[in-house]
């Protein structure tokens, strides 16, 4: 091995060890931790990587594009002296990039002299603005009972074969700044959209591209694509590159940005792969012990800050392996994100779209974005009441499956009817239906009116007097 100093950094010819995507280089001095390198194989092809560990006279490097074709003596590694930066510019909206931020749509490199570190920096909690403005998505199960706010991170937990892509596309198409119920619908400010695909199939990326084109959103979408056949290690960078652009758009250009990340499960697997090759002590299911911190460094890049009017709202999509919500990926995600929208297979089989399993779904920030002067005064209690009633329905269903529906008490039978109607009328809506918040509230009250009044203990008596339209409304 020999070390040559060339313009822009030092170059090492030859590597000591190659294992999977990990290279060990000896003889380099003054290497910095997390620095970017260029790896050139004997044919002159260049791929990029970064430094994972440095010691005296050696450096451990992770290649973003794998190690196929690299040889011990024929590989040259050039240290670029800086951490990974990508160019950022407004004109990147409407463009398509690979997982490292290089254009792949045939267009030129974005013209800018602004480069930002893909790792970003943590937002100081004192500089944040707590999210309070709700986003109207036109989907009852979100707006009504799991309200999404600007600056929130709300993942979709799904499984293979479920329509999470459609739901995400519908949210992106319909999202506007929420209005107080009854206020006239004005043209909402449009969101800039940053879309990052990690290890998804070409069809999925294509589906989103078509969907953005059809809704006329394509000019305000920046797509970062690392597809299933792209190098897995590149996936580690993809969400970070996307969020770096999002931060620039939101915090410097003051735009409202919606970030869709799919599929985080593939991201986690890439991380696990690197960790395994490095021989780190695994925690659960072979994932590294720092999975939580690593995911947080992605999800926490969301929110609003005091120096900008813009915001970043994140919708990560995760397919739960074997529909298991306790798998480390959904589990640690749920601990970091501000709630989750869970898709349910039973509802999907019953032909209900979107198949949002209401009970395990949650929006933690909802309480601060709804109610008086935001949506409508009764909204928080109405939501709690729907949840409580639907939870009770599940108990009644379990009972009915043992003793039969006929044996149920009169009240329980009403719960069964309520449950069915809730799924068909409230949860179910078409892919193109964009419901206003008052429509969602109205449907909810119609359903609650199927139950006897004394069952409704979460809403106030005044609200019952105003909105309840059930059989015993008179007494």
């Amino acid at each position, binding site marked *: 091995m020999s070390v040559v100093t060339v313009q822009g950094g030092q170059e090492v010819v030859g590597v000591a060890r190659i294992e999977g995507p990990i290279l060990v280089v000896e003889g380099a001095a003054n290497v910095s931790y997390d620095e970017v390198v260029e790896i050139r194989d004997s044919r002159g092809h260049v791929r990029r990587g970064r430094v*994972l560990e440095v010691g005296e006279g050696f450096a451990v490097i992770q290649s973003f594009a794998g190690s196929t074709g690299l040889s011990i003596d024929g590989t040259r590694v050039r240290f670029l002296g800086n951490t990974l930066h990508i160019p950022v510019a407004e004109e990147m909206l409407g463009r398509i990039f690979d997982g490292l931020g290089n254009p792949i749509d045939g267009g030129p490199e974005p013209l800018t002299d602004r480069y930002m570190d893909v790792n970003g920096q943590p937002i100081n909690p004192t500089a944040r603005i707590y999210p309070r403005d709700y986003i109207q998505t036109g989907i009852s199960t979100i707006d009504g009972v799991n309200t999404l706010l600007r600056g929130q991170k709300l993942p979709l937990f799904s499984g293979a074969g479920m329509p999470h892509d459609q739901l995400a596309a519908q949210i992106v198409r319909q999202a506007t700044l929420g209005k107080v119920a009854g206020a006239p619908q004005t043209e909402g400010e449009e969101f800039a959209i940053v879309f990052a695909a990690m290890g998804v199939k070409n069809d999925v990326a294509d589906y989103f591209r078509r969907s953005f084109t059809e809704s006329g959103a394509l000019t305000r979408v920046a797509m970062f694509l690392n597809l299933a056949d792209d190098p897995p290690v590149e996936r580690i960078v993809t969400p970070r590159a996307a969020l770096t652009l999002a931060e620039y758009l939101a915090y410097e250009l003051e735009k409202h940005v919606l970030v869709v990340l799919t599929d985080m499960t593939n991201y986690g697997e890439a991380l696990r792969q690197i960790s395994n090759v490095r021989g780190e002590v695994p925690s659960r299911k072979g994932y590294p012990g720092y999975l*939580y911190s690593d995911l947080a460094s992605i999800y926490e890049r969301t929110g609003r800050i005091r120096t900008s009017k813009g915001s970043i709202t994140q919708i990560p999509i995760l397919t739960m392996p074997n529909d298991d919500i306790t798998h480390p990926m959904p589990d640690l995600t749920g601990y970091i994100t501000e709630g989750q929208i869970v898709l349910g297979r039973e509802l999907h089989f019953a032909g209900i779209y979107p198949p949002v399993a209401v009970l395990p779904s949650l929006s933690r920030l909802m309480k601060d974005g709804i109610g008086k002067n935001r949506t409508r005064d009764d909204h928080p209690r109405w939501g709690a009441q729907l949840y409580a009633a639907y939870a009770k329905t599940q108990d009644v269903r379990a009972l009915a499956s043992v003793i039969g529906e006929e044996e149920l008490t009169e009240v329980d039978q009403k719960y069964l009817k309520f449950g069915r109607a809730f799924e068909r009328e409230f949860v179910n809506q078409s892919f193109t239906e964009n419901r206003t918040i008052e429509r969602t509230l109205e449907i909810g009250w119609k359903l609650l009116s199927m139950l006897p009044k004394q069952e409704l203990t979460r809403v106030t008596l005044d609200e019952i007097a105003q909105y309840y339209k059930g059989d015993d409304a008179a007494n």
Partner: protein
Amino acid sequence: MSDQVGTITWISGPVVRARGSRHVGMLELVEVGTERLVGEVIGLRGDQITVQVYEETSGMKTGAPIYGTGLPLSVELGPGLIQSIYDGVQRPLPLIEEAMGPFIKRGARFNAISREKKWRFTPKVRAGDEVKGGAILGIAMETETFEHRVMLNPDDSGTITWVASAGDYTVEDAIAKVKMGKEEKTITMLQRWPVRRPRPFVRRRGVNVPLITGQRILDTFFPVAKGGAAGIPGPFGSGKTVTQHSIAKWADAEVIVYIGCGERGNEMTEVLQEFPHLVDPRTGRPLMERTVLIANTSNMPVAAREASIYTGITIAEYYRDMGYHVALMADSTSRWAEALREVSGRLEEMPAEEGYPAYLAGRLAEFYERAGFVDNLNGTQGSVSIVGAVSPPGGDFSEPVTQHTKRYIRCFWALDKSLASARHFPAINWLDSYSEYIEDVAAWWREKTGKDWLTMRNRAMELLSEEARLSQIVKLVGPDALPYTERMVLETTRLIREGILQQNATETVDAYSSVEKQIRMLELVLYFHERGMAIIKRGAPINLIHDLPVVDTIIRAKSTITNEEMTRFDDIQKQIDQQMGQLDAEYRS
């Protein structure tokens, strides 16, 4: 004050190795690299020094210097802590924002306590007084109402030779001089204390006063004592943070230390923006005026997360030493344990369970044992109560952090996903939770309310466990198969669950229940049960009880009757008497 003690040879994430001096101390604070990032020595082998760095190490090079300070990792203590928000190693976040903008950059160095701000100091000792460690030398008003008691460092003692007269002083101005042996030491309002060393006290006292939180399921059913330790484990979305926030808001402690350890940035922002506007029901002052916040969010450097717990508990002990009751919330201890695991993994230590280091249990024990109700060195009494959140992976309580935590706490509030899904909040499962402080605090309840809390509480718990048994039967055969006496139990437990256990943290009236309101509600529900049961035994059908209008009134009482309107509960009792009286009369004949 710092000399180069070594040269960096190896870097991996937050762990750095250097070669150099053999005189660097274990747990010494060091400055790493040309940017002088804060770090702590965690291992020494020959001339090899292992350091955990409390800031991001991207871009650091081998060959860079490290500097020693000769001091262990310490916190600054003095007036000005209250209303502050710090990161895990006590750097003030507002100053970082002022200097660096909305993002936290590296190499920030600020005094934790302002050197310019002046405090009104009133001396409490005179020249010639003999003073021992911890002695209160004077008072500084930290807020309009909060007395900061300026104490002599616990390690010092001697004779006062001079005391400053009452007036305004900064924390660095001399406020007294103490002759210790031959030398005279100048005392200021500022002191330092190593975070990993518990502050001393004379002796532990028994714990028999409950920490009142205004949360009915906690105070009435699973109380924690002042000076006790409670753990609150739960899967994501079950309401750990909401419960921690409720306790931080309403607990009857004089000082609250809230540690956001590896949690969400927005949650700390919520506390920061909400607490100044909430009023402490006891002092009438904003809640922020008794709160110290430590925020090391999940995306901030992982090693500082490990330190944040110690920074918080040391500040808590400092206020305890003044004779105050302090409550410390740690959200979440699992993230702290994960930080230990990450650093341990980088050191390639042999892992024990699930990759955690073998010393996990020992560290947890050290932390929880710093809770206590004690006689202070200066003769006052104070307490530190700890409420630690635990985030078990997959909600599985058999994992190491939950299991080890259970060994060192005496109060366990088990959060339950299915209750949370049904929006039953706080989602604390009454069958899985326990408190070992119940007998200890029973006398306090009797004295305070004049009522037999212990008997009532146990009676209610008995009904709830009866309900659990009956629900099993109902699931198999339906409620109609149960005799009316058992269905009466189900009617009552519904009142307990919906009327007492459920509590809405976002509603003004319901968010905080006084102890008087709590015990009165329990008393009413049990009264309802006894009257109802008597009528059922005379042969009345259960639906007559179920349909009584007073049932709805009882369930709604929590949010319709404020803590000040206690007499309205007497009206409810009258309604029970009247409505039950009618039924009673019908079935007596």
